[in-house]
């Protein structure tokens, strides 16, 4: 498994409704094996195990933790301007979360704060591959994806502070918001995997309106254990819907290590069981993430179905702000800190002379300035009136004009009238 192969195998094409690939003329059921494409330049080899030392049970990491940090892989698609934009989103993502952490320490946040520390490349470079008409369903750590999709840091800050002006008007927290009109974002819910069939359904709705779009969502190494993950991805596979599923393998599902979530070597192998392409990328390399996302999105827009992309990295904080992650062996933090996605990308851009140290400083200062303004605005904005908790449970006749987003559905109605209802073979008459 996990053979290195840069090219997506050709035998992954769309299958027509009659069960045959129009290009390959082979029935889909006869396709048995796939190569898992692995774009990484290094393959970390360590394991995390529960061990007993005397009366203490803890996690211990074994393996090679001294490997040198690999370079950023050159992108096949990104130019200088795009790389700098992604870098800026990553900075904004991280520094916004630092602002959130400070707001929390000042007692201004209601509830907890969730971080994407160490995962900024995965959030930002993946969402960067989406077009305006595509859709995104972020998970809790994909706050960077929301920024790329057009929400502002102030939106996210106000969500955390439960302000009247937050996207949900105080009704929900964190990344739990969306926009079906302009930004095409589905609001996540707290249970894991539930976005997967929903995003597949968005692609289905678009297809009924004559459009093949890319729909992107995420699941973790923990969340992929849920049944709805299987249901959703399998449905997308049999319907050839343009789902791009990032499996963010950050090694920890709250406090449970990945080795206690699954037995396969790489979660990308799961793709084989769905009959879809599976790809592995280094989750701390923005170029690898973008390239894989871009190829999967292009495939989706060609109507050729879903792709599973496993991004390997580590969650560099606890599950949420209350969790000090003391269960994580310290050497793991050291290993992954050396692979910090922002530091790596910064070094790459400086090394290529795509950005000068002065430009970099200015960019960082701009981001900080923007965040300061957003922070001041969010802090000063009012809490909701208590009565605003009422109403809005239902959509009354005037609250929304519901119409197909991509134009009139393409319908083909046969001439046959209402067929005679068959009475045979009915269960439980």
């Amino acid at each position, binding site marked *: 498994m996990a053979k290195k192969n840069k090219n997506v195998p050709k035998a992954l094409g769309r299958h027509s409704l009659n069960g045959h690939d129009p290009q390959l003329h082979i029935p889909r059921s006869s396709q048995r094996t796939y190569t898992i494409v692995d774009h990484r330049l290094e393959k970390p080899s360590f394991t995390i195990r529960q061990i007993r030392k005397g009366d203490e049970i803890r996690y211990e990491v074994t393996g090679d933790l001294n490997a040198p940090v690999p370079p950023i892989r050159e992108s096949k698609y990104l130019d200088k301007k795009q790389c700098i934009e992604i870098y800026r989103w990553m900075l904004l993502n991280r520094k916004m979360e630092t602002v959130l952490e400070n707001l929390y320490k000042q007692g201004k946040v209601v509830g907890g704060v969730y971080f994407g520390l160490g995962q900024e490349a995965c959030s930002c470079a993946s969402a960067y591959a989406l077009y305006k008409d595509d859709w995104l369903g972020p998970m809790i750590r994909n706050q960077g994806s929301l920024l790329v999709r057009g929400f502002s840091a102030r939106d996210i800050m106000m969500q955390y502070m439960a302000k009247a002006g937050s*996207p949900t008007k105080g009704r929900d927290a964190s990344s*739990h918001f969306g926009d079906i009109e302009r930004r095409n974002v589905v*609001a996540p819910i707290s249970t894991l995997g539930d976005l997967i069939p929903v995003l597949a359904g968005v692609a*289905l709705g678009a297809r009924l309106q004559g459009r093949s779009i890319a729909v992107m969502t995420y699941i973790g190494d923990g969340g992929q254990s849920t049944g709805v993950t299987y249901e959703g991805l399998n*449905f997308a596979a049999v319907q050839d819907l343009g789902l791009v599923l990032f499996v963010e393998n950050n090694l920890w599902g709250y406090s449970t290590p990945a080795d206690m979530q699954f037995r396969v070597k790489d979660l990308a192998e799961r793709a084989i069981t769905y009959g879809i392409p599976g790809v592995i990328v280094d989750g701390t390399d923005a170029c690898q993430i973008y390239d894989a996302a871009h190829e999967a999105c292009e495939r989706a827009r060609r109507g050729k179905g879903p792709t599973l992309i496993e991004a390997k990295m580590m969650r560099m904080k606890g599950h949420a702000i209350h969790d000090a992650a003391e269960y994580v062996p310290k050497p793991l933090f050291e290993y992954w800190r050396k692979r910090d996605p922002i530091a790596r990308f910064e070094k790459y851009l400086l090394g290529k002379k795509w950005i000068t140290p002065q430009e970099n400083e200015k960019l960082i200062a701009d981001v900080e300035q923007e965040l300061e303004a957003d922070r001041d605005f969010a802090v000063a904005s009012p809490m909701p009136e208590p009565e605003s908790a009422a109403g809005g449970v239902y959509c009354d006749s005037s609250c929304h004009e519901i119409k197909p987003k*991509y134009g009139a559905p393409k*319908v083909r109605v046969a001439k046959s009238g209402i067929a005679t209802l068959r009475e045979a073979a009915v269960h439980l008459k």
Partner: protein
Amino acid sequence: MPQLTYLEAIRQGIWEEMERDPSVFCIGEDIGIYGGAFKVTDGFIDRFGPERVIDTPIAESAIVGAAFGASLTGMRPVAEFQFMDFIGCAFNQIVNMVAKAHYRWGAPAPLVIRGPSGGNVHGGPFHSQNPEAWFVHAPGLKVVCPASAYDAKGLIKAAIRDNNPVIFFEHKYLYRRIKEEVPVEDYIVALGKARVAREGRDVSVITYAAMVHVALEAADILAKEGIELDVVDLRTLSPLDREAIAETVRKTNKVILLHEDVRTGGIAGEIAAIINEEAFDDLDGPIVRITAQDSPVPFSPPQEEYFLPKVSDVVRVVRRLKAY
């Protein structure tokens, strides 16, 4: 007017909505070439094509999730559950993803989840349930339980046109057992409005779905004794027609709440509370519940008969209540 079965009325209702509105489509298990386990979508795939009559894997969460996702793009999906007993498989999608969407983030979810519920067909514990109360308890959903062919057609059309998620419980015992005149012309029956299925001055029976017919049969028997039942068919359990409930109590001052669902936590308890709130002073006797017992639906016919509320139960309770 043509005579239609309850099932044919639902089938025609969905068919007509698909003709009228290209954003309506069906999704579910075995609904395509097979036409559905009960044949509600029989002939649909030939008429509307596999694009709009989508056979799915056996994956209820995926069916609801995909329907919801499609609804976010402005489509109006009609998702079939082969049996409403299996709705538990999609519970999280329905109550956490779909029901909360409009309140949380302003996303309307104009989808219908429909399928057969109810017993008296010897289906056993997994093919006979009445899970409607679970969803009445989830704000954001509408819950519909038709009792007649006319209502079934008008309500399914109203459900499809509604901008909210609607759980539409068809009663499988009624599918082929009732037949009545249904207009050819387009009509809807508004959600949230009860109807008086039979006018009477003595005792009210507030009920819905198959139990409406049990109440009407009891009313025929009692009429011979000079007791007139006011039978209220709720039609929609969420939102409940509070006014219709209060009105029948004001008329008769004596109320029986009848449902096929199990007793504890069933809708009868909620209706009793509404009567206390709206019409307590009008009561001349205790509010009496007639329901299934608190157990799974048993399989064997004599046991199922014991389990289900019967005409004789209604007659007995009415006679007792009349004495107050």
